[in-house]
Every structure is written in structure tokens, then in C-alpha cells.
């Protein structure tokens, strides 16, 4: 949690001092619901609800973070880190990202505190009618635990202006 607060503060300072960038173009927030998989389970191990935030600092580089609550196992988890968009960043409705985040959770057996490398995608399936809705997925590999965890979910983005 201390790391999360430090990162959030650094992001706020950096974004606050940004030159020639509208804040609403830089920062994005969304509410979300996920199915969560812990390693090789066939069905989702849990259903999560929570939110994401991201600050797009350059065409390919963003700082990202998330906080979610898992209903079945009754846990909170959070993550923060950096993501590099490896598809054309000008594509508004689809993207793939590679990055790394520091993860933590209220239950260590659900999500130990560790750095994890991750791959993610985002897809806006109905850009003309429901442009705020996206389908997202993320798989992360814990660098200490060696455990793969994945989520597949929906996001509803909120406008900041």
C-alpha cells in the first residue's frame, strides 16, 4: 500500500507538471468486472469488481493501476506499474500492451506482494454505439511466485470532462 501511494503521488506530480497536454487526454478511469483465473483452473476462480486508472505519458508508455475486490474469496487486490503499447497507439478500438506491475492483496495466497510481468489487450467492440465499453484481458507472471494469473473482463470508462 505504501508503494501504491508513492506511485500515485509521483504520477500526480508528473501529470500536474505536464506541458501541452489536457489532463482528460492523459488520465483515464474506468469501472470494471472481471473473471479471474489463478493458474490452470477451467472456470473463473473468482468474480471481481473494481476500477482501473491509467496515465498515458507518451504514445507508447502509460502508468497503470487497478484495485479490485474478489467476491468468492473475499479479497482486495491492487496493482500499479507501467505498460507499453505494442500495437499502433493511434488505433482507438484495439491495443495490446506489455509491461510490469507490482501487485498486492489482502490475502497472500490469492496474490502475494510481488512484481509481475504482464501482457494485456483491450478491445472496444461497439465503438459507434457504446464507445465507453471495452473488453479487456490480462495475464501476469509473478517473478517471485512463478504463478500465472489472468483476468478477462469488461470496462466502462468515465469521462473526466
Amino acid at each position, binding site marked *: 500500500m505504501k508503494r501504491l501511494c508513492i506511485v500515485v503521488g509521483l504520477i500526480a506530480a*508528473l501529470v500536474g*507538471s*505536464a*506541458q*501541452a*497536454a489536457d489532463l482528460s*487526454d*492523459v488520465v*483515464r478511469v*474506468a469501472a*470494471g468486472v*472481471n*473473471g479471474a*483465473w489463478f493458474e*490452470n*483452473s*477451467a*472456470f*473463473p476462480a473468482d*468474480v471481481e469488481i473494481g476500477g*482501473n486508472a*491509467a496515465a*498515458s*505519458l*507518451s*504514445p*507508447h*508508455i*502509460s502508468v*497503470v493501476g487497478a484495485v479490485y475486490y474478489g467476491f468468492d474469496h473475499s479479497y482486495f487486490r491492487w496493482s500499479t506499474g507501467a*505498460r*507499453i*503499447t*505494442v*500495437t499502433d*497507439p*493511434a488505433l*482507438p*478500438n*484495439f*491495443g*495490446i*500492451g506489455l509491461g510490469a506491475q507490482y501487485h498486492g492483496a489482502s490475502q497472500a495466497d490469492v496474490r502475494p506482494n510481488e512484481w509481475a510481468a504482464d501482457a*494485456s*489487450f*483491450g*478491445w472496444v*467492440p461497439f465503438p459507434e454505439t457504446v464507445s465507453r465499453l471495452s473488453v*479487456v*484481458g*490480462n*495475464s501476469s507472471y509473478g517473478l517471485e511466485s512463478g504463478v*500465472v494469473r*489472468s*483476468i*478477462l*473482463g*469488461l*470496462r466502462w*470508462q468515465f469521462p473526466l470532462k
Partner: protein
Amino acid sequence: MSIYGLLVLAAGAPAGALVDLLNRIKNTVPDLADDAQKVLDLLAQGVQLDNLVAVASHLPGEIANIAQGKIEPGGRKPADMA
């Protein structure tokens, strides 16, 4: 199709199951077939090595700009919300 049903379709879902999910969408929701195929094509394009090398070539300049406080956010980047 319920949200949970959509998630269950991706049974066993790490990133690789996205392809299976999109193929299921293509086969069961004809209106989304073209869009799903476009996503599959972009997915295949995105993970190619030459594309990754091209992306990496942009990073030093972008990191330098960020360090100087020059924020250029770029596009929507849907993957940021994952």
C-alpha cells in the same frame, strides 16, 4: 449472453484463450464476425518480432520526453484498462 457466460466461454483463459474466445464469437455472433477477425489479425500483427523491435526504437525518445515533463498522451490505448 450474460456477462458471466461470456467470461466462462474463455475457460482456462490466459492470454492464449483470447483467440478461442474470438473464434467462438465469430461462429456464434455473425454480426461481430468481421470485427472479431480484425482483432485476430491485429493480435497476430502485434506480437510479431519486427513490430516489437519497431516499438522498442521509439521508447528511448519517449522516455527522454517524459523525463523532461513533455507529456504526449497519444491515442485511447484500450489495453491500458486491463
